[in-house]
């Protein structure tokens, strides 16, 4: 009886009696959700254009962040370093298209997927060679990102809004909106969807496969840079940052691999869901459930929508 109370009643009593903690949990969930959406977006962009699950997205986050810090440490002003990092990500996109994707046109998706494994290990090795493995501190203040917190007193306690989190939500939202419009409403967006459907068909109607691939890999690189800055500000920047890519997997399961709105809505559901579950129900299971809870949540959704929230419905003719 006691366990039933703890599951079905206790958490809601806690929410009612400590609304400040509820609001804080929701806010933290929202921030996490936006950041998860950002990571997921990197995967979605590339999958949409090439049907490839980009295993290298995590290491691209590390590579972009280390490039930014490395250039700044070499004496460049922060915003110049930022601009140059964007250029580096463009060069990387061109390199990937020329050296990795172009020779693999019309190969199966699995071969392209394996190629992204190769890219991952190349970037790990190259990154270690150039930047070393020492952790680095993100240049948050040099990029004019705010620090400190705004504290709202009320609701029977207080709610704290970290300024860096507010900035993360705003920057990420703008970025996601711009990318969504760019890929959903423009000619390039339509071309991108055509490429995703069939390389050969897209080529036959005059779509430049090379151009589309460079654009999406560059966009994914810029997303990786933003992810690296936002996540790097929370800890150190080192090769362990690659692990943040894991956070995107349940979001992708939930939102679908081909949908930009899916990545956003999926990110928010996972972010808020995991924080609420961990805070109110986690203690019943020994805590630390945020490591696996998002997957359970995503799988529950999949029972009802196997293609994900916004994924394309798969219709196979028999």
């Amino acid at each position, binding site marked *: 009886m006691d366990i039933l109370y703890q599951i079905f009643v206790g958490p809601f009593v806690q929410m009612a009696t400590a609304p400040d903690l509820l609001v804080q949990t929701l806010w*933290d969930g929202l921030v996490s959700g936006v950041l998860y959406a950002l990571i997921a977006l990197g995967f979605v962009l590339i999958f949409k254009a090439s049907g490839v699950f980009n295993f290298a997205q995590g290491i691209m986050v590390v590579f972009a962040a280390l490039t930014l810090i490395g250039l700044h440490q070499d004496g460049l002003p922060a915003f110049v370093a930022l601009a140059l990092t964007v250029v580096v990500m463009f060069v990387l996109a061109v390199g990937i298209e020329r050296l990795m994707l172009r020779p693999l046109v019309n190969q199966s998706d699995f071969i392209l997927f394996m190629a992204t494994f190769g890219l991952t290990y190349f970037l790990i090795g190259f990154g270690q060679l150039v930047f070393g493995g020492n952790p680095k501190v993100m240049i948050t203040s040099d990029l004019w990102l705010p620090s400190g917190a705004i504290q709202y007193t009320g609701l029977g306690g207080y709610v704290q809004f970290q300024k860096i989190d507010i900035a993360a939500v705003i920057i990420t939202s703008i970025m996601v909106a711009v990318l969504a419009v760019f890929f959903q409403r423009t000619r390039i967006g339509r071309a991108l969807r055509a490429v995703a459907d069939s390389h050969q068909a897209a080529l036959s109607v005059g779509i430049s496969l090379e151009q589309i691939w460079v654009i999406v890999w560059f966009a994914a690189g810029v997303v990786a840079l933003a992810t690296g800055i936002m996540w790097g500000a929370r800890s*150190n920047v080192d090769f362990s940052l690659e692990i943040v890519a894991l956070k995107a997997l349940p979001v992708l399961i939930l939102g679908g691999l081909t949908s930009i709105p899916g990545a956003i809505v999926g990110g928010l559901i996972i972010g808020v869901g995991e924080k609420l579950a961990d805070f109110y129900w986690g203690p019943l299971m020994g805590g630390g459930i945020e490591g696996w809870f998002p997957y359970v949540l995503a799988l529950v959704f999949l029972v009802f929508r196997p293609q994900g929230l916004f994924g394309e419905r798969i219709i196979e003719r028999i």
Partner: protein
Amino acid sequence: MRLKHLALGLAVVMAVPAAVTAAQAENGIFLPQFTYRTGPFAGSGIPIGNGIHDYLTMLNERDGGIGGVKIISEECEDGYNTQRGVQCYDSVKDRHPVLVTPYSTGITEQLIPRAAVDKIPILSMAYGLSASADGTDFPWIFNAPDTYWDGASAFIRYAANKDGGFGKLKGKTIGLLYLDHPYGREPIPLLQALAKDYGFHLKLYPVPLSSMQSQSSEWLDIRRDRPEWLYIQGWGAMNPAAVQEAARNGFRMDHLVGVWWSGGDDDARPAGPGGKGYTTLDINNVGTNFPAIQDILKYVVNKGKSQTPKSQVGENLYDRAVLNAVLMVEPIRIAQKLTGKKEVTGADVRRGLEALNITEARWKELGLPNFAEPVHLTCSDHNGHSKIFVVKWNGTKWIKQPGSLEPIHSKVQPLIDAAAAQYVKAHAGWPKRTEPCQKSS
């Protein structure tokens, strides 16, 4: 013709490593180093790899090795990956290493059953399996100078000292923020036992590997529970994220205490001024103000024989690695004395480890006065349970605090005995110790 060349080539390829191995066995003491200069934990692995390398190189340059025998140190990169660590072990074990230091709890646990078979002692310095402090059941494993249980008990003693005695802990809430991994979970049984004895409430905050960089959930829990003290058993990116979250959440930094592996300079630095006051347990002193460290600078770093940037010599994890290197070298010296041989074997070094007794005077002789507490191992005690230092972050570097903390031996020893017995029971056919004890131990 081609076949002939191929056969000749193969013969050469096969003969060269054998010849090299034989030469190495004859001309030096082989001390392989398992490193993780790459991968997600490289931030911690690099200073450790550097410190061990530099100390051993310094001995070669300054003294011609140990007892006049050159040290052959070779790195094997495992990326803190257990499987790769075991592969490293397999790649060196036939080359007669006199000692292996896995530098990972996971790798150590894999190698424990193999040490007695291969006759290669394992030194897992202040990490690994706490139960392996029991020399009777684990004659080939050494985890000096402290176990994680010594550390957790020293933390409770520290909190009690600050709060006015153990009696004052009653009714208080003490938290453990830990990496949800065997290493991170290690102090839990000890803290649970102490919570029962001293009447404090223990709250556990596991951090999943995938959430190392962002611990907002855990810190929400901490805000709700309001623990008076928080003990961190973290590694890699978990540590700086925890210190930053503590600073952001306004947690009292002098009530945030890390185990020694949560005390890297890179763990505290990212929090900036907000990290001031963060405290960790330590098993070594910090800085460069020691003759032996000055010799490292003189013979190794300044001569370009090291990968270490000069500014990083003397940082906490670097000095930790120097301590580790001393604990590798001293048993070899002792083994040379015990056996009268210059070139000792793993079995000899195991005897040397059981006779290890680094007193305050010996630390001074080594050029490391007050660098660490005395370490004394015996046949039955492979840990020593030395006193533990406390260091505090001043915003830019670690400062050693006066005095040191005695682990609560009466609580730690029963746990070690029980855990060792349980390990033996769980591993059917675990061999009974046959190795004789040194008279001195």
